[in-house]
């Protein structure tokens, strides 16, 4: 899933400055699962912003709503009546795909992103998430004992580890595992380390973002 985190509150306050009525829109997709932009987080952000206004003696109306998904025109369309109320600012708490969909569908609204998308990954434990994919478009994890060097090596090396691997950690951060250390360990244990002896050829990055913005059309699904 897409792992996101809320922008600093000061940045969000800057978005809504001067607005007496705002709408905060959550998303029940990835950001609900990673606790950054679901109904609960919408409620908390609304409350914080109201408290912020209150303590200055002002009144802020912060309405809340959460869509099934903000990355789907169907759900965004159904949301139109909510906007009839006239808001000074609409804060999307989806990943940044949400504010793009809202802005495209409702061009007259001022739509702001309340979250930063951080990476594609999964949970390591409750409250801990880590990057696991960079959407290179040509998955090779099976060649590396199920580990992804493209997203998990700071240099995306396919013939690692580089000289910065120390005690299983990456030189870039002592908290980050050297994925190449893990690959070597796992393949040694599996008795497949020999597969690493052959130089891995250059990667074709066309399928990655380097090939330009990507799009998939599934003719059998298109109406």
């Amino acid at each position, binding site marked *: 899933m897409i792992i996101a985190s809320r922008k600093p*509150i000061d940045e969000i306050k800057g978005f809504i400055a001067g607005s007496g009525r705002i709408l905060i829109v959550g998303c029940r997709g990835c950001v609900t699962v990673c606790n950054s932009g679901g109904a609960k987080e919408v409620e908390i952000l609304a409350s914080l912003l109201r408290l912020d206004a209150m303590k200055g003696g002002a009144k802020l109306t912060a309405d809340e709503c959460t869509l099934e998904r903000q990355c789907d025109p169907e759900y965004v369309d159904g949301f139109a009546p909510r906007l009839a109320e006239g808001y000074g600012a609409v804060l999307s708490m989806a990943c940044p795909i949400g504010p793009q969909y809202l802005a495209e569908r409702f061009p007259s609204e001022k739509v702001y992103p309340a979250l930063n998308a951080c990476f594609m990954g999964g949970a390591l434990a409750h409250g801990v998430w880590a990057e696991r994919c960079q959407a290179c478009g040509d998955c090779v994890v099976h060649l590396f004992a199920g580990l992804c060097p493209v997203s998990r090596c700071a240099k995306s090396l396919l013939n690692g580890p580089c000289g910065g691997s120390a005690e299983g950690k990456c030189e870039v951060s002592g908290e980050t595992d050297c994925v190449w250390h893990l690959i070597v360990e796992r393949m040694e244990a599996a008795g497949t380390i020999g597969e690493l002896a052959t130089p891995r050829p250059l990667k074709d990055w066309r399928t990655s973002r380097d090939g330009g913005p990507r799009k998939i059309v599934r003719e059998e699904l298109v109406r």
Partner: protein
Amino acid sequence: MPDHPPTEPRSPAPPGPGPFEPRVIAFCCQYCAYSAADMAGSMRLQYPSNVEIVLVPCTGRFDAILALKALEGGADGVYAAGCLEGSCHFLDGNVRARKRVTHLKKELESVGVDPGRVEMYNLSASQGPRFAEIAREFSGRIAELGPGPASRSKPPG
């Protein structure tokens, strides 16, 4: 049952002259703090009447949004009171609550609300006097901080 059910709603301190009497909401775990409040009551221990107790099955039920809604609704301070660490009936509800309170303090600070307006306490069911002490201590702290954000937004008079 305590002779004064702690969940009984009390009316907020009437506005007017005299020292500021803060409105405090205490989320109390049924296994410890709530029983301690009960004991404090039967021991006739003095604690501020402006502390309103909300019974929770465990402070693990406590969440940032409960405190935020309380503050928005006119509370001047909020605390959670759970079992001593290591004694939670649900293993670690009180530890989680403490983490939530710590995080909430940062959130409040970020919108200019004094982080001291929320707190986490731990005590056991047998600590009636400690319950009263916490209530006095926290109430005193909030009295010093003055009215909370919601009271300030009300027009004077």
